[in-house]
């Protein structure tokens, strides 16, 4: 039987606020245990939550970026469960009327655009952290993370492969960073994915029983966990078994998923509106004000690069993978408006390559867009060849001569020889010294031509303008 895999993702994006969602404690990562857990985060008797405007703003911003409906009023609810890193005995979340309802995200998988519908995105607080080791039979609780604002973004089951799921997660990851609501740091847990996976016979429109795989904190694990889980479900069904709805954990070291607990339904959590929090009103004026701060979105910019700069869809996609890269490209191309493709190639090639090699982000790129533009100008005006430019680039990257392209070219004598008479003189010398190859070429040996070019370039240490050398040599040999 042919099987179809059906996937929906839940992503928890930690919002980039300074303080927590319901208290004034800091959200900074990596502080000593419990130094950022105040009375509200600890749930001491008598305390009351007060909602952080910055968290709501970020949720609205996200909603606008995905074309969703912003609910007003929006309601906070208690989700009840018992665990020591949740001191209140309930998590403040949203159930009915989340801030963000609907919307969609366009992903590219296998070169095809596909729109993935979002169900909702709601605000909630994170729980603390439990440490199970080294406390002589006790568990240690750190509540620094308790109360950190999260936006849980839930997709419809529109994804059909692990590749699409990863494309969706990456697009979402790029988007939340682009609009500045989440730092996207996956090592620190700022962006976590849960995957709901089910399988069904191809052609069926009924959903199969799903399993939820928790806490996938890298795109690679997301892909592998889904692949494993889909295979497991298909094998179970083909052997005549049934799938039990449950929560599973992905074990990266064994590359498999295993049962964590049987899945709770919503009513197990006894959701009800939190009486401590009044309904949240979001005025149209507030929405408009946030809309005006929204940057041009990645999809729009990508399309603009194709029409405005005549770049390929692939190039435009790479350059708009982060806002910082796109900004870097645009400031570079502003100084070389006719050379967009040259700028694109250098940023995607040399710049990205060196950044990867040094393990740094484009924000910390040692070569500014102005410095790069100065270098590329010298390629486009024929002062240096593209090959020589790479040598200049290397010197600039290493900080030589104030990263000034012209200074490096002058100091190293890399200026291209573009003077016709100088090149002619060189060509004559090389021809005189290689009489055999000249005869070979005239007898029809095409290869001899390239060999002669090589000799000339070698004699000038690669500085002769290759196009001119080509023309002059051809003229001399045939003339």
């Amino acid at each position, binding site marked *: 039987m042919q099987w179809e895999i059906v996937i929906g993702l839940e992503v928890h994006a930690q919002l980039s606020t300074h303080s927590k969602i319901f208290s004034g404690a800091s959200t900074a990562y990596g502080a000593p245990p419990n130094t950022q857990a105040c009375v509200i985060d600890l749930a001491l008797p008598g305390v009351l939550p007060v909602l952080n405007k910055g968290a709501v703003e970020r949720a609205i911003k996200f909603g606008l970026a995905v074309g969703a409906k912003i609910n007003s*009023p929006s309601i906070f609810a208690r989700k009840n469960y018992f665990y020591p890193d949740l001191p209140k005995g309930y998590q403040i979340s949203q159930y009915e009327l989340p801030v963000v309802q609907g919307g969609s995200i366009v992903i590219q998988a296998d070169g095809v655009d596909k729109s993935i519908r979002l169900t909702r995105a709601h605000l909630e607080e994170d729980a603390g952290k439990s440490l199970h080791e080294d406390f002589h039979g006790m568990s240690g609780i750190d509540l620094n993370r308790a109360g950190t604002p999260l936006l849980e973004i839930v997709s419809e089951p529109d994804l059909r492969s692990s590749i699409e799921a990863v494309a969706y997660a990456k697009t979402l990851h790029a988007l939340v960073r682009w609009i500045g609501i989440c730092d996207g740091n996956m090592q620190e847990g700022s962006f976590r994915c849960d995957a709901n996976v089910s399988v069904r016979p191809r052609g069926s429109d009924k959903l199969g029983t799903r399993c939820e795989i928790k806490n996938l904190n890298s795109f690679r694990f997301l892909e592998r966990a889904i692949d494993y889980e889909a295979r497991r479900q298909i094998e179970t069904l083909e052997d005549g078994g049934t799938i039990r709805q449950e929560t599973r954990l992905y074990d990266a070291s064994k590359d498999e998923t295993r049962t964590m607990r049987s899945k709770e339904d919503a009513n197990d959590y006894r959701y009800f509106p939190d009486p401590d929090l009044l309904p949240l009103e979001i005025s149209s004026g507030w929405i408009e004000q946030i809309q005006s701060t929204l940057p041009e979105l990645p999809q729009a910019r990508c399309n603009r690069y194709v029409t405005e700069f005549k770049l390929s869809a692939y190039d435009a996609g790479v350059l708009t993978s982060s806002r910082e890269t796109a900004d870097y490209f645009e400031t570079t191309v502003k100084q070389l408006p006719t050379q967009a493709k040259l700028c694109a190639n250098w940023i995607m090639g040399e710049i990205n390559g060196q950044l990867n090699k040094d393990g740094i982000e484009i924000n910390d790129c040692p070569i500014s867009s102005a410095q790069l533009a100065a270098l590329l100008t010298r390629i486009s005006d024929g002062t240096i060849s593209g090959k020589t430019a790479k040598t200049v680039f290397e010197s600039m990257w290493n900080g030589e001569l104030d990263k000034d392209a012209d200074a490096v070219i002058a100091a190293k004598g890399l200026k291209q020889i573009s003077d016709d008479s100088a090149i002619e003189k060189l060509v004559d010398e090389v021809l005189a010294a290689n009489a055999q190859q000249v005869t070979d070429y005239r007898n029809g040996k095409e290869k001899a031509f390239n060999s002669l070019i090589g000799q000339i370039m070698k004699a000038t240490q690669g500085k002769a303008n290759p196009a001119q050398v080509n023309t002059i040599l051809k003229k001399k040999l045939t003339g």
Partner: protein
Amino acid sequence: MTLSVNDVKRIADLAYIEINDSEATETLDQLSGIFNLIESMQAVDTTEVEPMSHAQNVFQRLREDEITETDQHALYQSIAPQVEADLYLVPQVIE
């Protein structure tokens, strides 16, 4: 929904409440009254009524995103039953 005296005694037992026969009968009357009230309310047609999440027609006040709390973990931990390495200790929990 109809309750029996046995139901009441079982609920009392589960709630660790000591209850004698006459109290059980009295409680049965009170609880049945509450259930009757719920039944009357459920008979009302609410299809056109918008669900209400709060009794008052007022909205949430928001605070600015500012850090206002300082580190006082030593003070808070002074009333905790057990603390080690700045962590609150609880009986072991493993899923």
